[in-house]
């Protein structure tokens, strides 16, 4: 069972609002990730981090931003949400000591922008 937690699980907000999706892990993993997944579709990597003060953009361009001030915490922020941001956002973490970069996922945050 992975110790990685996301809040909120479900969120419905209006266009133009600022939102932050929280992600915390208690495994001490250095690497953390954010993936975006539309229903029934593939996962797209939007952000990742190698450790504290490290943030990198993923394969899919995203208007969201991330920060990594503490090892265990990797929040994702949308300054002005739009309906096109409606999706599931999955946070994940991994440790170099794990074989093959195995990733542990949170349960996901479902965002709906109306």
């Amino acid at each position, binding site marked *: 069972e992975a110790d990685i937690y996301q809040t909120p699980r479900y969120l419905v907000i209006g266009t133009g609002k600022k939102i932050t999706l929280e992600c915390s892990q208690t495994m001490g993993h250095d690497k953390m990730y954010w993936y975006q997944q539309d229903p029934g579709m593939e*996962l797209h990597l939007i952000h990742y981090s190698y450790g504290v003060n490290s943030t990198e953009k993923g394969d899919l361009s995203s208007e969201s931003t991330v920060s990594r001030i503490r090892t265990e915490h990797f929040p994702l922020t949308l300054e002005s949400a739009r309906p096109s941001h409606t999706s599931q956002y999955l946070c994940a973490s991994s440790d170099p000591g794990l074989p*093959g970069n195995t990733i542990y996922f*949170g349960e*996901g945050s479902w965002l709906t922008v109306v």
Partner: protein
Amino acid sequence: SQQGEEDPQALSIQEGENATMNCSYKTSINNLQWYRQNSGRGLVHLILIRSNEREKHSGRLRVTLDTSKKSSSLLITASRAADTASYFCATASMNSGYSTLTFGKGTMLLVSP
């Protein structure tokens, strides 16, 4: 372009039957992993196979890897209704310096009682 591509997109079988899913990828990899996702949940790691391995078993799961064809298959034997989920392959490719995983679109498996 995505790295992993699963086939079929959806599969419906009866309990007790075997389910086979395939994954093709494009670039050189150092390992390939399979993950499972229950509806509306996060993904769970199932099994990893390294590029120098050809077959691996874990319980009712059997994974094969053919690096010459850039393909892998996941076999679930004696399937159960609880196996109903989406299954994704993921690769750590040379393009990313093996530092991130790229996922395919997944195969949706429905196992009927």
